[in-house]
């Protein structure tokens, strides 16, 4: 304990973070995890704040809640008509109808602003930014439940490729086209796949490199031109590049209307192997990045739900008073606020760990074990505290609840992330 860890450590010692240290005998707990010596940078840089306002402006302009609702409406009707997404073909016109994705919005964000290539080094045609910037973009996309394939293409597929042999011309070319926004990718794994799970065996590659098998519940496949597919070949696990037109991409009616899922089937599909030293490790790195960055999407979503609810209840009158002035409501919102600011710290820590490569295994799982509960709680409170209007299709809140609930399952549930922490923290199961 330092001499000047004042103030606030009075009779309250032990409740304050700086207040009290355990006495002797707790040594093993003090420096658990590799990165605990140096503290992560949990703030936003000016560049990150600029990026945030750029994305926010574009979304406010091109994807306001009203147009989002209309788009989702059309997509829902389309899905009810049944049928695969317009008989997939590689033509752009087919992609344009892969509702609710908004190709024009994605062109601006992904290609014009360069967000599709944020994580890709400059020499490979990208922006050379890091997970910290991608996290800020995801906060804004989460706040707008924006129907773009950023997570699938710019995070999941891109991270998998970055973990392959980028000196290989094929890998470099594919990364370059994803980074420029010329093509959109998806990682052909179930959205529920958690980092650390066994390499998927659903798709097999034959000696000629043709793929056969089905992957269920793939995120952003509907918007993709190219699929990065984990498959087991004669030589073991590998990653393959497949043109989306060579696969059968069948959407189903998804709980999450703004990130619809599809089943992807390969029937002897032509594929190009993507060289990597360790395909399983490459896939795992992609899922770890996806899980860590998803926490920022969940943060943005939760913050929006909180802000919108505070705004609404600050105006709504019942019993001759502003509803937000009732203490039962104030306390619930104060608790939710505390959860959201806590999630901000956790999500920043995960993003920083992914950016620096230090402590990511623990930091990502901490963030993801915490994030989904907060996002769902925020969305559920928002629906409840909006009263009847919260139950309507007309109000965009339902899109947030559906995304929050789906995100709870995405890239590993909180329970799976906690279980994965146990060995890392030396807290073994019973």
């Amino acid at each position, binding site marked *: 304990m330092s001499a000047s860890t*004042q*103030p606030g450590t009075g009779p309250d010692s032990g409740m304050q973070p700086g207040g009290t240290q355990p006495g002797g005998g*707790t040594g093993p707990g003090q420096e*658990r995890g590799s990165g605990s010596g140096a503290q*992560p940078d949990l703030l936003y840089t000016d560049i990150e704040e600029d990026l945030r306002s750029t994305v926010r402006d574009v979304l406010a302009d091109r994807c306001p809640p009203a147009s989002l609702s209309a788009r989702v409406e059309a997509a829902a009707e389309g899905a009810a008509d049944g049928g695969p997404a317009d008989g997939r073909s590689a033509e752009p016109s087919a992609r344009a109808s892969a509702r609710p994705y908004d190709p024009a919005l994605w062109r601006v964000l992904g290609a014009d602003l360069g967000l599709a290539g944020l994580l890709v080094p400059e020499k490979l045609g990208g922006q050379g930014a890091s997970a910290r910037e991608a996290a800020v973009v995801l906060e804004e996309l989460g706040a707008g439940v924006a129907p773009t394939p950023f997570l699938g293409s710019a995070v999941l597929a891109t991270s998998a490729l970055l973990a392959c042999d980028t000196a290989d011309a094929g890998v470099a070319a594919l990364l370059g086209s994803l980074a420029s926004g010329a093509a959109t990718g998806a990682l052909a794994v179930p959205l529920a796949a958690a980092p650390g799970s066994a390499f998927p065996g659903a798709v097999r590659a034959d000696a000629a490199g043709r793929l056969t098998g089905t992957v269920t519940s793939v995120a952003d496949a509907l918007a993709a031109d190219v699929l990065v597919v984990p498959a087991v070949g004669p030589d073991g696990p590998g990653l393959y590049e497949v043109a989306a037109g060579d696969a059968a991409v069948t959407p189903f009616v998804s709980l999450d209307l703004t990130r619809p899922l599809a089943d992807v089937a390969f029937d002897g599909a032509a594929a190009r192997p993507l060289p990597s030293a360790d395909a399983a490790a490459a896939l795992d790195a992609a899922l770890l990045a996806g899980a860590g960055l998803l926490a920022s999407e969940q943060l943005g979503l939760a913050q929006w739900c909180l802000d919108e609810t505070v705004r609404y209840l600050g105006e709504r009158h019942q019993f001759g008073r502003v509803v937000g002035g009732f*203490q039962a409501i104030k306390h619930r919102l104060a608790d939710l606020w*505390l959860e959201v600011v*806590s999630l901000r710290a956790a999500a920043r820590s995960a993003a920083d760990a992914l950016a620096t490569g230090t402590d990511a295994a623990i930091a990502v799982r901490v963030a993801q074990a915490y994030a989904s509960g907060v996002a769902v709680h925020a969305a559920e409170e928002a629906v409840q505290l909006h009263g009847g209007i919260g139950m309507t299709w007309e109000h965009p809140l339902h899109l947030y609840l559906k995304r929050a609930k789906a995100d709870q399952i995405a890239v590993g549930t909180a329970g799976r992330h906690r279980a994965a922490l146990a060995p890392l923290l030396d807290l073994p199961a019973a």
Partner: protein
Amino acid sequence: MTSNATPEGVRARVRELLAAHDPAALEPLDFLRARFDAGLAWVHFPEGLGGLGAPRALQAVVDAELAAAGAPDNDPRRIGIGLGMAAPTILRYGTEEQKHRFLRPLWTGEEVWCQLFSEPGAGSDLAGLRTRAVREDGGGDGGGDWIVDGQKVWTSSAHNARWAILIARTDPDVPKHQGITYFVCDMTDPGVEVRPLRQITGEAEFNEVFLTGVRIPDAHRLGAVGEGWRVAQTTLMNERVAIGGSALPREGGMIAPVAAAWRERPGLRTPELHDRLLTLWVEAEVARLGAERVRQQLAVGAPGPEGSGLKLAFARLNQQISGLEVELLGEEGLRYGDWTMVRPQTVDFYGRDAGYRYLRAKGNSIEGGTSEVLRNIVAERVLGLPAEPRIDKDVAWKDLPR
């Protein structure tokens, strides 16, 4: 900016201090006095008052350097009320004379402080207090000493304290917030009687304090007459929001003993407790990161409102974690160390058993403002929601129902 405002600058100051005062050779108190005089007590305080007028963030640099050199510390837990509440208030509202009289022995720990705020009838509604301070007829400026009568309660450290910060009613004819004045009370005055108040843990960490004809010179008033509520806000803000300059390591708080028990005693493990332990471990880590984020914001001079939530978060977590620990220990959790009444010098969460931690942590959501009151504050000041209805706002204190 002087070089004092840089990490290299304060490091040079530390080196100078160590060169002139060998911590291994000196009495701890002599070293602490020298440290204060070198401006390395609170670097953000003004020069001459224990500081260098440097950014607050540099304190962490000083602390780390001095700890590495094996310098003695001033036992911040024993003197927490002085450091955390009295000092910032004296700095802000005290006269030059008061600052020079009080701050050095406060910081070195020679003089312990306590806080005479709460009363039997005034806890959350602190401004409703009824302890009276009446000015004696006196000399030329129309007044002499103040004579104080009343009763305070839940006063931590009163039995060790040399001085107290005290709020008392000086004008009952105006609404409650307007008639309060803030004083420094001499705990050795014959009119001060301190009686132990035994608490849930069995020990008597705090007290009832009876004030009967206590004489306080006007020179020990802090701030103007009738301005005591405003002065007290400085104290309370520091009490609730402040966070220390040093970063907490991962698994460095209340979670440490329960995690250690889990590792060392496989026989206690069950699958259900495992998931709860991991859930709380994650929440403790997230709370730690939240506190770290606040610290980083302060360090760059951009404090956010997040600090207001920290006490809420840690109070809830400490209670849940210590509750889990008792449960994990099973039969051993049924034993309690010692119910003998003692009057501790400090609150020692970790020197005692799990049952003690569990019981003492109950105070974390009451002391320094209850969690309910803190939620009101967050809702109103951070989220901008309407304030609680105030039926007592324009009524003279003497006419309030009680």
